[in-house]
Structure formats: C-alpha cells, structure tokens
C-alpha cells in the first residue's frame, strides 16, 4: 500500500468536507476519485499533498505517517500533484517552471552560489538537461523558452504534469487532468497517463469524465457529501445503485 487514508476528516467552520474517509492506493495502480461537485474530492487531494491540514484522521505514505508534514516536505518524499485550476509560475519560462521543481536535487549550498563554483555550474547544467528531457517526453521541447502564458490550454496542462514529474514522485495526484480539454488534447493526456503507468508511477486522480476513468483507472472510489459511498472497479461502480443515485441529475458521460 503506497497511500492509506485512515478516518480522514476535514471540517471548514462547521461544514464537513471530508468525513472519516478510508482510502487505499496500491503501488503501480491508477486510482480514481469520483463524485458530484462539492463532494470533497479536491479537499482530499489538498490534505494528502499537505496544502490543507486534516481536522482528524491519519495519512500514511509507504506506511509512514505524513499527516503533520508540510506541503514542501510531502512533495520532497515523493508525492507530487497538479491542480484543478492550472497553477503555473506565469512569470517564469516553461523550462524554469520545471526547474523550480528540481530544487530538491540541488546539493550545492549558499556558499557555492556566492562563489559561483564549478560544482554549481555543473549541477545547473545537469538539472537543465533533465528538465529538457522531461519537456521532450511531454511534447514541450519546442516551447521550453516561452512563457507559460503563450501556451495553449492542453500544453499548459502537460507542463503542469511535467513540473510534477520533475519531482520524480512515487505517487502523482492529478486533480481533474482532463477538465476543459479538446478531443485531441484529451487523447494525448490519456496517452501520457498510460505511459506514466507503464513507468510504474502510482496515480490518484480526480475526474468527472467517465470515459477518462474507464480508460485509465484500476480502482474507483465514489465520494458523496464528503463520504466514501462505494469502491471497486469502474464496471462495478457503473452499476452500483448508490452511485447511480448520487449522480442522479448529474450528467454521466
């Protein structure tokens, strides 16, 4: 088990966003988190990535308690994420966006910077190569020197994933990776996820698009009003009456 949530609860000023969620993610699989709007999916992702602190409950990553760790520590031990609404560093170039996430691989210290040592130069060069490779893998090699604002939506999403991958994560959290995509972009994102899976990266994703989940996921958790109401394979969920009830009125693709 790479990730375990135990009785995870989050309360916002009286409103319960997550209620005693128990969720397991197996290494090497893709797990999806679905549910109607406002059912607490993003809140869950935020807690796992350390952006929000849980009210109660526990999060285990590789059997280690990470509940009280801060976001930057969590990302350093191998959990990376993307955001529902894309958050890039708009004032940095594409390549620099990726390089920011390579921060933890730098071994040089403050004095190396002040004296501009050879070691630092080599390290910068090394990291730049890695970042360029990563951009190449995600089809962004030609845009490396542009500003993120100049990229089309699909490529911005790819860049955000590239940035997350730059952390060399064991677990990747994707918050609605396919939201707002055109048909072509949609296909390419599915392709990216398939490839990542082949490389052995475990993923937990939040999605609305059923087709996407059908294509990618090994296991599905269904959330409603902050609670897990069902779990299983996609096919099982499709026919679960509770799930269907929860989605009643919601458009299921």
């Amino acid at each position, binding site marked *: 088990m790479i990730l375990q949530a135990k009785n995870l609860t989050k309360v916002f000023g009286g409103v319960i966003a997550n209620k005693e969620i128990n969720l397991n993610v197996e290494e090497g699989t893709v797990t999806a988190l679905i549910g109607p709007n406002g059912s607490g999916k993003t809140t869950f992702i935020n807690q796992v*990535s*350390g*952006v929000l602190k849980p009210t109660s409950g526990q999060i285990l990553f590789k059997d280690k308690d990470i509940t009280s760790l*801060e*976001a*930057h*520590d*969590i*990302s*350093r031990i191998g959990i*990376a*994420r993307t*955001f529902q609404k894309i*958050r*890039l*560093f*708009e*004032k*940095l*170039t594409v*390549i*620099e966006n990726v*390089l*920011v*996430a*390579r*921060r*933890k691989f*730098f071994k040089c210290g*403050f004095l190396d*910077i*002040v004296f*501009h040592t050879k070691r*630092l*130069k080599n390290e*910068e*060069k090394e*990291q*730049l190569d890695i970042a*360029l490779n990563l951009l190449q893998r995600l089809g962004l090699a030609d845009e*490396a*020197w542009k*500003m993120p604002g100049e990229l089309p939506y699909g490529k911005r999403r790819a860049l955000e994933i590239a*940035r997350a991958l*730059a*952390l060399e994560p064991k677990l990747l959290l994707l918050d609605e990776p396919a939201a707002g995509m055109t048909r072509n972009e949609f296909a390419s994102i599915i392709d990216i996820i398939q490839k990542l899976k082949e490389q052995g990266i475990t993923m937990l994703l939040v999605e609305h698009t059923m087709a996407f989940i059908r294509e990618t996921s090994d296991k599905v958790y269904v959330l409603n009003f902050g609670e897990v109401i069902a779990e299983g394979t996609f096919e099982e969920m499709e026919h679960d009456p509770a799930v269907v009830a929860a989605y009643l009125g919601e458009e299921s693709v």
Partner: protein
Amino acid sequence: MRVVNWKKILLIIALALVVVYPFLDKNDYRLYLANRALIHSILASGLVFLTGFAGQISLGQAGFYAIGAYTSAYITTRLGMPIILGIVCGILLSLGAGLILSIPSFKLKAFFLSLVTIAFGQIVYVLILNLQSITGGPYGFFGIPPMKVGQYYFDNKGYYYTFLIILVLVILIIYRIKNSYLGRSMFAINDDVIAAEVCGINSKQSKIFAFALSASLAGLAGSLYAHLAGFLSPEPFTFFESSNFVAMAVVGGLRNILGGTIGGVILTFLPEFLRFRGWENYYLIVTSLTVVLVVVFMPNGLGNIIFKLFRGKTHSHAIHKEITTLRKEKEGGTK
C-alpha cells in the same frame, strides 16, 4: 561592417567616471554625499531583494540600520575592538533581528506584516532613545573611530572606494542568488506560494533567507555609516527614514538588480541638489513629488528606463544568464 557601439562606449565611460570620480571632484561635500549614496544603495539593494524578489515588505528597515550602526559604534568605541569586528558584529546582530522579524511573515501578509515591521522600527527607535548607557540616547554617540588601513585614516576618498567595492560585491552576490535555484524558488513563491510549496520549496525558509539577507545588508550599511559620520543620534532611524529607504528601492525599480543603487543614488542627491537659495521649504516638496510621480507613472522604476536605453529592451527577470548561454550552446549544437 563593424558598427561602432555607442551604447557600449557610453557605458564604459560611465563606469570609468564612477571609478575615477573622487579624483575629478575635489568638493568634499559632494564626495561625502556620494559616500552616503553608496551606503543607501547597499541598504536599498537589500530591500529590492526582499521586496522585489521575495515579495516581502519591510517598513522597519531603519531599525536594522540602527542596530548595525550602534553595534559597530559600541564595539569599536566603548570596547576598543577593531572596526572590522564591529562591522561583523553589526551585521550579525541585525541578521539575528531579521531572523526574529521573519517569523511573523510566515502567517501574515501585506498590511499586517508591514505593521509588524513598523512596530519593530518604532521599538528599536524607542530603545535607542532610552538605553542611554549604551547608545547615548538623544545626546548622541560621539567619537566613533574612522576606518583606517595601517596608519592611513580614511578620508572621503578612502571611504568612497571601500564602499564602492562593498556595493559591487553586494550586487554580485545578489545577482548570483537571483540566478540560482534560490532566486528561482523565490520568484516561484512570489508567483504562487501553494504551487511552489507542492514543488518542494520551503516558503518559510525562503522568507527567512530574504529577511536575513536584507537585514544583514541594512546592518552592514548602518555600521559603515557609523564610521563615516563619526557620530550617531536617534533622528536618522525613524519611520520616515524607513519609508525613504523603501522609496529608494521602488524608485530604482523592484525587479531590477541595480534598482537599489539607482534609487539610493537618486534619492540621496536629489534633495541636496534642490537646496537652492530660498528653497529651504520647497526642496522636500519637489523630492516627494518626484517620488510620487515616478511611482505612479513608472511603477517599474527608473532602473528599467536606464536598462532600456542600453539594451534596447528589458529582459524578463526570470530568464537567467546560465540558462540563456546553455540554450545558445544547445541550439548552436543542433543546428
């Protein structure tokens, strides 16, 4: 087909003028002002780093300036230690204060943080007034020894070159930090804290670092000032002085590596140049009006305009040299 690059020549002439200035101008008053401008530039460069690069605000910089000045004065005058030790202690003590002041910045933003820094400046000011046995209080602190090398006691010329070298080193260090992963992380935090955090960047550490660096630079500036002036009194360490320092940084340009220097020089010389006969009431009106106009109509500061003159266009602060050269290498290699 070689075109003479006038801009480059102009730049070289300007730099040469800066280097030989003390020999061109025999006016002791202007040279003294130049020295004060250099001190202000050191301090304002720290503020550019803190505000422009790390996105934090400080309206209490005069507090660090004061700590540096009085520490160095006390150690050299009362304890009879060498000046270099005084300066180092001045830097260390303001660094310590900077570390403490960075704590509120974890939780507080904008207004609240600026108020904490104002309060810090006020507290330091009141302490200077009241800790008479250490600071001399309102009477002032007198007899601070001038710097010397061997038997040569510094005159304004000696100070000029010392301060110039220190300023150049400070700018170089800031430049290197800016162009390293540290600088990149800071810009990232400035852009989007949460995104930076999930990229593995410790925003607290970054803020501590920025506060510590700008505080040490203010402390350094303060201790240099103590030895230049030879005496200290509480008046140059008020809230208005702090806001003057921020004005220097903004007028020079917050996104500009030379912003602190440009602002420091301009705002040190401008009011003095405006001291025309009969203008004893007006010169500050014109100075403050100039600052307002620059801030309102050129929010990127005067530094940008000067850069534009020489480069034709301004670079995004983000594209840093290392990457650009590597990029050229790579493109040269593939093509």
